[in-house]
């Protein structure tokens, strides 16, 4: 069966060029970068080159990049590390209701350790109001952490505006850029952030590697203690292969962004959104119509549940995702969809299609072609439609 992948927000295939770049580091150039012999120094050089490339992607200085095992670790490190290092100054953290669990659960961990956390609401598009951030800051606030773009509904937050507010208050500012790094242009100084999380596998790099941008002079305590790697900021033998791969992926992403390639994805996405909205009734687009990630399309289809859509799509060869409880392993619908004001029964009927650089127009057409039939078939099974309180 021909398989179409429209789940790039979950993970991306590793670029074949990236794989080629990594290969020699498995069994030939396998040194530990901390070793002073030939093998080690060869690895060291490669790691530093990759660091440069990642810094370049976000217009940072390479000494401000710390490699981690992924986006989740970067988020945990930024949030817990700032909290532990600055607890004498204050115990208050500000975040939003629509953050990734890597951020939310890190905050909840800190609450158990005695910190206080404010979870800001969002509007119906999922946007956070910089004014709300301003109002929430107290003299106990030590950290604001707001995601750059939401992984489910694709909404891009006004980070630059929030950054100004946070800077005025003299508080540390972290953004989870896992969904934006490599996908839209980023300049850490323009955004005004002190920390920024990235994950290799979200932009055609390998999995198991990420990075935290850590602005010079940021007071932080380590999450992972041990050897003196990463200038004493993150212990553990460097994942040379992963780092090399993420570096190459950053280089390729920077090239695509310089060429404005993300605009092609936006076009395909808009075609997908229009096609689906035109052909299917009782459907809603989630997220902001324009302030959204290039590849993200997220819908709610009334009367039906997300997992059943995913199974049906999978049977037709299309890989997609949903915010339904069944697919998240939890019992409640996506916290993001609930935060934008959807009732649970609607939130369960969500479908996320995330396009990548290699999706074609034919694939989008195919999707627009098959979806109405699937929705119709599932709706025929549904006991709702009468006395439905969902949308409207």
């Amino acid at each position, binding site marked *: 069966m021909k398989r179409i992948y429209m789940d790039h927000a979950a993970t991306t295939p590793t670029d074949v060029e990236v794989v080629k770049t990594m290969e020699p580091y498995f069994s030939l150039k396998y040194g530990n970068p901390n070793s002073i012999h030939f093998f080690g120094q060869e690895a060291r050089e490669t790691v530093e080159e990759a660091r440069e490339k990642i810094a370049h992607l976000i217009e940072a200085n390479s000494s401000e990049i710390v490699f981690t095992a992924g986006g989740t670790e970067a988020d945990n490190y930024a949030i817990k590390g700032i909290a532990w290092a600055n607890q004498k100054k204050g115990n208050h953290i500000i975040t939003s209701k629509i953050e990734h669990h890597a951020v939310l659960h890190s905050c909840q961990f800190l609450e158990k350790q005695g910190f206080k956390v404010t979870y800001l609401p969002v509007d119906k598009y999922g946007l956070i109001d910089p004014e709300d951030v301003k109002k929430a800051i107290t003299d106990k606030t030590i950290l604001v952490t707001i995601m750059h773009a939401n992984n489910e509904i694709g909404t891009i937050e006004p980070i630059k505006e929030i950054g100004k507010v946070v800077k005025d208050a003299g508080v540390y500012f972290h953004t989870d850029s896992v969904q934006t790094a490599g996908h839209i242009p980023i300049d850490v100084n323009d955004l005004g952030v002190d920390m920024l999380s990235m994950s290799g596998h979200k932009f055609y790099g390998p999995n198991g590697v990420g990075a935290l941008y850590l602005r010079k002079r940021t007071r932080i305590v380590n999450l992972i203690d041990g050897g003196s790697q990463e200038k004493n900021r993150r212990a553990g033998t460097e994942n040379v292969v992963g780092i090399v791969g993420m570096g190459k992926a950053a280089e390729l992403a920077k090239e695509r962004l310089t060429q404005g390639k993300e605009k092609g994805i936006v076009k395909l996405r808009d075609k997908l959104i229009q096609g689906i909205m035109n052909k299917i009734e009782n459907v809603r687009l989630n997220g902001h119509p324009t302030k959204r990630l290039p590849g993200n399309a997220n819908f709610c289809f009334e009367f039906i549940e*997300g*997992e059943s859509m995913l199974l049906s799509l999978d049977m037709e060869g299309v890989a997609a995702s949903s915010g339904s409880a*069944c697919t998240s392993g939890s019992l*409640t619908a996506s916290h993001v969809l609930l935060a934008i004001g959807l009732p*649970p*029964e609607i939130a369960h009927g969500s479908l996320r299609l995330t396009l990548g650089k290699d999706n074609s127009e034919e694939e989008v057409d195919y999707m627009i072609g098959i979806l109405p039939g699937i929705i119709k078939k599932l709706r025929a*099974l*549904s*006991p709702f439609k009468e006395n439905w309180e969902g949308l409207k």
Partner: protein
Amino acid sequence: MGMYSDKVMDHFKNPHNVGEIKDADGIGEVGNPVCGDIMKIYIKVKDDKIIDCKFKTFGCGAAIATSSMITEMVKGKDIDEALKISNKAVAEALGGLPPIKMHCSNLAADGLSKAIEDYKQKSKIKK
């Protein structure tokens, strides 16, 4: 490969006995839209034997497959026999369910019980 057994997928692809029974003798509804699961089971009964059974389900693959399965298992059975069908038996008849589905989307037997109760209630009133 896949999270579900082939039997589950068969029932999901081609669910049996989908629909409503307009003049049903009993209707059972279980689940909660907040959790993403609603099953409605309709039965037609003659001489305490279930002669027809249909369903409508809002829910995941397991919810749909278990609904479909029970409508098959129940046809022609005495209502007392039918009451003995457990959610676990439905899952077994489907070749098993993934662990996380055992307790959330596996409600069809409960739905059937409710439909039979409803039938008993109604037939009491009629008498």
